[in-house]
């Protein structure tokens, strides 16, 4: 009788327990200003044409901190701000800047070939690598990262409204965090520095 009561109580307790609470962030994650994923997952890899003339794959940059963002060279509002911020933040790192790679993937394959991406990104930082490819390849990459793009026709062409988050990928290729648009140089430099100090 007592055993049955104990079993019933145990069953009641187990069903009454709340769902697993979210795992607390690690100390390293808590130090980041950006939004963090717990636990992190591997950043989806891709294969695109790089603005340096080579194949662009995230896995090539294993061992470095990668800041991955999406945009296009004809963007007049969001992309120049993001790229200038990233360039400035990277310069602030000093010697550690060589451990950080910015990868910028176009959302506008119609206009952005690799030559144009190279020219555009060099305006901000010659080390930035751009990615382009077929519309299908780029759409597949966007899907993996949840990037949305909406085309709006204008009198002299079109503009693209696109997600403006920057993904922070650590030296092991793990997608650790995501910085929304609007954060300044100091926030990016801080988080780049935190990730750069980690071992690969």
């Amino acid at each position: 009788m007592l055993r049955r009561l104990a079993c019933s109580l145990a069953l009641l307790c187990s069903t009454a327990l709340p769902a697993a609470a979210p795992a607390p962030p690690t100390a390293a994650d808590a130090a980041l200003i950006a939004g963090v994923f717990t636990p992190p997952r591997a950043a989806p890899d891709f294969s695109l044409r790089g603005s340096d003339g080579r194949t662009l794959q995230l896995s090539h940059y294993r061992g470095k901190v990668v800041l991955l963002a999406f945009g296009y060279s004809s963007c007049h509002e969001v992309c120049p701000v993001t790229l200038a911020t990233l360039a400035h933040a990277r310069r602030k790192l000093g010697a550690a800047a060589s451990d950080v790679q910015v990868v910028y993937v176009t959302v506008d394959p119609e206009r952005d070939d690799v030559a144009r991406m190279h020219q555009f990104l060099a305006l901000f930082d010659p080390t930035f690598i751009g990615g382009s490819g077929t519309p299908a390849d780029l759409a597949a990459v966007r899907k993996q990262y949840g990037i949305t793009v909406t085309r709006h026709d204008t009198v002299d062409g079109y503009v693209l409204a696109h997600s403006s988050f920057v993904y922070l990928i650590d030296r092991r290729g793990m997608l650790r965090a995501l910085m929304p648009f609007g954060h300044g140089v100091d926030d990016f430099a801080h988080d780049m520095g935190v990730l750069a100090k980690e071992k690969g």
Partner: protein
Amino acid sequence: MNVATGTTRRQIALRAAGIAALLLVTALTAVALQPIRAPTHEQLFEIPKGTWARRMAGARVEILPAELHLTLGVRDILVLHNLDDVPQQFGPILLMPGQTFRMPFTMAASYQFACTAHLSGQMSIVVEPNPATPWARLSWRVNNYLRSGRWS
């Protein structure tokens, strides 16, 4: 005699109304002046296990409100926790099963997301400025009560 009694009663009623109004204003001022205290800055939203399966079975399951409200300095860290068996997407945030995403907000704005956790496919996160003035605090408390049923 009757006129005098009527006047007295009116005066008493007016005085009582005045005192009540004064008490109400005092109470509102006291409430408004108090700083808003929150035990945590985190606002947790969970996607329950089995959500996807129930959707596939034809149930109209709405997990999160279409509009999430955060307030700078009070509750300004969004925590999304996916307890379901399949990945769920909130705009650029792709959450694997069991994964959590913590996003601190520092700018008041309205953020629009495409979101698979919503039947409409859309979600808004409204980040309101810190209620710094007494009137803003009172307004925030009333709105928060209307939204959540809790007085802070």
